[in-house]
């Protein structure tokens, strides 16, 4: 009586499995949607944190990332369709099959051994019960869309877009501590000793007298000071004042050309010192130009110190700090020797 009997799946049961497969597919898709929505919310939160604390992110990066993940999950869901075993298990548990559909499936696969009597009765029972189960399946409420997670993810996306589009959300990096030599140099520039003060004042007065020439020199030096991006450009910025001074020397009196060049170097160094104090390692070409453009700042020390602090903090270029500073310090030492 007992033996392996392979029989095709009854049509009624096959139809039921088809309906169950559709339902399971939809269930899985909605589950994936919900998971992707929560995942998107997490990604958005992480993106905001990164944008605000570490590095600015592009507005399009995060949505593309989320969209890619959602697309991959959807495709995976579509490709991973429910197996007949899953359908049978669902029909048994949710549609009152009491393991009959699993047994029918196993019998159709030839995996279930038993007497033909029992298999016949099983087949008869499932054929009679399958249409009823299919009707019950169609009456059962469809799973709802995961609105909560979708709304949360959408709100997060809007907030993320707003935050990423805001400018200047990244804080300035902490200022690099000055070395002992740099600190000494800065101090001597910001607070000239009584020994050097007259010489500096004299140089400043000469510079005020030669302002048209300096303006002309600035006109030539501006492009170099505006150029940014590589070390060569930075060097150009650092030397822009020198270039401007050289232009003035050619156009003005030749006797004080050395003095004006020295003054330009000093002004540049002072501007550089303020840049270092504010954590800005960029060469002070711009600072020189701004200072020179200010009409009431020529010849005074205090306005020269205050001016860079009032400016918005320029973009830091720490990669230029070392060589430029050393060059400036070398020039300053040369000037001091000449002064002495």
């Amino acid at each position, binding site marked *: *009586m*007992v033996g392996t009997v392979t029989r095709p799946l009854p049509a009624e049961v096959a139809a039921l499995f088809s309906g169950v497969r559709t339902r399971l597919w939809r269930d899985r898709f909605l589950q994936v949607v919900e998971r992707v929505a929560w995942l998107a919310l997490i990604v958005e939160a992480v993106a905001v944190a990164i944008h605000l604390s570490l590095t600015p992110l592009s507005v399009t990066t995060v949505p593309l990332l989320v969209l890619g993940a959602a697309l991959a999950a959807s495709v995976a869901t579509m490709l991973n369709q429910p197996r007949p075993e899953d359908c049978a298990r669902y029909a*048994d548990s949710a549609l009152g099959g*009491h*393991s*009959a559909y*699993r*047994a029918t499936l*196993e*019998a159709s696969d030839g*995996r*279930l051994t*038993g*007497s033909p*009597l*029992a*298999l*016949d*009765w*099983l087949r*008869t*029972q499932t054929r*009679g019960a399958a249409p009823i189960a299919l009707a019950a399946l169609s009456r059962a409420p469809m799973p709802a869309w995961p609105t909560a997670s979708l709304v949360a993810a959408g709100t997060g996306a809007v907030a993320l877009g707003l935050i990423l589009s805001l400018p200047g959300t990244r804080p300035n990096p902490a200022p690099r501590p000055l070395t002992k030599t740099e600190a000494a140099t800065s101090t001597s520039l910001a607070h000239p000793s009584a020994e050097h003060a007259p010489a500096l004042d004299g140089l400043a007065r000469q510079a005020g007298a030669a302002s048209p020439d300096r303006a002309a020199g600035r006109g030539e030096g501006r492009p170099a000071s505006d150029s940014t991006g590589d070390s060569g450009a930075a060097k150009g910025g650092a030397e822009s004042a020198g270039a401007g001074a050289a232009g003035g020397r050619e156009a003005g009196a030749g006797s004080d050309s050395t003095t004006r060049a020295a003054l330009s170097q000093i002004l540049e160094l002072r501007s550089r010192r303020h840049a270092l104090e504010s954590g800005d390692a960029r060469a002070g070409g711009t600072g020189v130009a701004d200072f020179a453009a200010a009409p009431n700042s020529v010849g005074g020390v205090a306005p020269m110190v205050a001016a860079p602090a009032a400016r918005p903090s320029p973009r830091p270029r720490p990669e230029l700090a070392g060589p430029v500073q050393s060059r400036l310090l070398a020039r300053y030492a040369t000037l001091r020797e000449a002064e002495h």
Partner: protein
Amino acid sequence: MTAHATSPFERAQRELSALCAALDRVIVGQDATNRALVVALMAGGHVLLEGLPGLGKTHLARALAGLLGLQSARVQCTPDLMPNDLTGSEVLAAPGSAQPFVFRHGPVFAQVLLVDEINRATPRTQAALLEAMQEGQVTYAGSRYPLPRPFCVLATQNPIELEGTFPLPEAQLDRFLYKLKIQYPTPAALRALLDVSLDAEPATTVAALLDADRVLELMALCREVLLTEDCKRAAVALIAATQPTGPAASALATRHLRYGASPRALQGLVRAARVEAVIAGRSHIDYADLESVALPVLRHRVLLKLDAELEGVDVETLLQDLLRQWRAGL
């Protein structure tokens, strides 16, 4: 439905349902016990009934035998009950017979044997009963005497008055398919009992619904019930979960159990579940069948640790927790 009326499974369902209903009418207020008794008998097993005196254990056994049309016998166990009193013995033959001695069958040669207060019999007598239960035969003086079929032992024991008793050893307990605990009937059942059995013994007057041959056919039909791979795995998982030193032991079993269920318990579980499936009108086993028979199959086959007993852990509660975990893991 009429097209399927000739199915043996449907007929079996009707007959077994009718048997349970008839038993319920005789033994009032013990519906679950009545059904379990039918299941155990159809599965070819033996039943240990535990309950206080006066709950109708003897009455139940008689009613079952009467409804099934089977021969029944009753043995009241006492410490001086000898094995021969159970199995029978050789006596002098009548004059003129070929053999000088003939074997006189004992009460064990009934189809439904009620062994009252089995724990009052000595271990020697209990062992004699053991062979009859397990082998379906009696060996006397080198000769084997097969027992009639079907053969079912319904043994009772009293959970109180344990003085002077010989508790059944674990090996003998394992021979019983079911251990049923008979509870007090509800007030409504007690009220109905007054109408049924106040002045009469309905168990002695019941009309037989089946006969021995039909019972054997039904037992054979139950053996044809299908068992899917999932149900096999589930049954194995349940038994393995009770074995405290096994690889699939549950945390509860590891903590509280000294011994778990045996492979014989697994066989009994599936055999009983088959009958439950037939009573439900199916030709295949469902998880629900396994679950419904798990408690009576397992409750006398697991042994608590001493610590657990001192903590007041109850076998019933422990098994129900195990079943809950098992059900959740399906």
